[in-house]
């Protein structure tokens, strides 16, 4: 038996098919993962993300500490409730984890980090927090729900008490507000609008049931993965890890090199990598039928029409691949050497299949963003 969230029994009663995910017993789906995917793109779905680790950082010098710890710059967070996506790096530039940081008050920032990296993250953060007098409090008392989809907000608001609803209704994208022990943020991992709600664990099952009763489809980790990949969002462990830096993981936009005086951990390694050149993460759209999977090898399409394997040099590999329910095609993120061109070959079980190189995201806010 693995670790269980406060929603385990509720989800089991709703027909959840449970899998092990980083030591947690989590729902893969509640029937059809494709239907759950479409529910989120077209209407609304709800995910249990209570396995993720919420850590509150407290102390007068928290902001100063985070400006050292994170590759993105929390100086950008000027209004309380604002969120920022960032990587936390090793001195080598390798990614320890990707996370969301919320600015609560000047002496309180909240981090949400991945379940699978929880232990390493907390050790790393704790090790560096000491000199700043920053206290790290893991919030195992909280559960976390993600309500996502074009109708997610409209379907969630009526279930909130008036005061909480007023606060939630006013939220700008990528910001949150705490009201009456619920922290509601307009963030997510699907490419759709919606809320992520952190609430006392004891209230989670009732909230989940109320949201389900509102017609919001329970969705599992299977749909969460196809949704995030369509949205061009990275998955830690697939698309980046401690051996890969953000610049070769499609995350250059999250590294704040300015101001040059901010000496965050990993900075000098990234500056050297930027000088030397590096591979980059690209999107792939399979032209044939089939499914792209991580670790499939990618090679140059030599001449137009010449699709024989072996006739081409390897230039990278797929880091995350899946079947995109919205595009009805296989899509992937792949790490490719510079100059890969606009068409490549992917080795699927020994046969070369043509794929187009595209710029992610593939889908955002229900709209297909790549030509198919």
């Amino acid at each position, binding site marked *: 038996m693995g670790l269980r969230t406060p929603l385990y029994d509720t989800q089991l009663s709703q027909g959840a098919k449970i899998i092990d995910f980083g030591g947690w017993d989590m729902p*893969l*789906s509640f029937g059809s993962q*494709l239907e759950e995917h479409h529910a989120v793109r077209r209407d609304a779905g709800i995910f249990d993300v209570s396995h993720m680790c919420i850590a509150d950082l407290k102390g007068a010098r928290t902001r100063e500490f985070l400006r050292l710890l994170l590759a993105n710059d929390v100086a950008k967070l000027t209004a309380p409730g604002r969120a920022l996506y960032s990587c936390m790096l090793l001195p080598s530039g390798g990614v320890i984890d990707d996370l969301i940081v919320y600015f609560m008050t000047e002496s309180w920032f909240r981090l949400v980090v991945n379940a699978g990296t929880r232990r390493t993250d907390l050790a790393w953060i704790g090790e560096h927090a000491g000199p700043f007098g920053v206290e790290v409090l893991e919030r195992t008392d909280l559960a976390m729900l993600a309500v996502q989809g074009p109708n997610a907000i409209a379907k969630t608001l009526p279930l909130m008490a008036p005061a909480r609803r007023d606060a939630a209704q006013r939220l700008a994208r990528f910001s949150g507000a705490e009201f009456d022990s619920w922290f509601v943020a307009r963030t997510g991992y699907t490419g759709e609008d919606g809320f992520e709600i952190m609430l006392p664990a004891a209230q989670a099952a009732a909230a989940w049931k109320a949201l389900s009763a509102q017609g919001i489809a329970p969705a599992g980790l*299977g749909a969460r993965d196809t949704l995030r990949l369509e949205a061009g969002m990275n998955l830690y462990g697939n698309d980046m890890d401690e051996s890969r830096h953000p610049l070769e993981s499609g995350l250059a936009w999250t590294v704040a090199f300015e101001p040059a005086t901010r000496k965050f951990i990993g900075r000098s390694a990234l500056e050297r990598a930027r000088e030397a050149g590096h591979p980059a993460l690209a999107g792939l759209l399979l032209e044939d039928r089939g*499914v792209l*999977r991580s670790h499939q090898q990618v090679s140059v399409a030599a001449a137009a029409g010449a699709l024989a394997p072996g006739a081409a040099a390897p230039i990278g590999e797929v880091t995350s691949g899946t*079947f995109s329910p919205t595009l009805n095609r296989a899509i992937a993120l792949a790490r490719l050497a510079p100059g890969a061109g606009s068409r490549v070959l992917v080795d699927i079980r020994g046969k070369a299949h043509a794929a187009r190189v595209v710029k992610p995201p593939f889908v955002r806010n229900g709209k297909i963003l790549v030509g198919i």
Partner: protein
Amino acid sequence: MSNIPGDLHYTRSHEWVRRLPDGQLEVGITDHAQEALGDLVFVEVPQAKRRVNAGDACAVIESVKAASDVYSPVTGQVAASNDELAQRPELLNSDPYGAGWLMRVEPDTSATAEALLTAAEYAQFLDQAG
């Protein structure tokens, strides 16, 4: 829980075999298999005329999460394969013992089906596998 028609034969790798009136053997995957795999999105069936040997991989089916091989339960020559699955892989989920059939095999005269499980034996095998 899962549907196991009494008139078919089965393998431990979750294929089923139906003897057709003309002596050909129709092959597919079981209800248990489709349920375990989840939504299927890609199927590659063997070409007609291809030789298949019992126990050899003969088809590939892919769900959103993973690719799986299908093993031929019998030895013989592929007489026909279900091309409809190229466009509608979901037939494997919705009708695994009917419209979701994978291939029809002309068995070698020497081929026997004695290694295959009856419905009762397959049900027992699933119970034991838990």
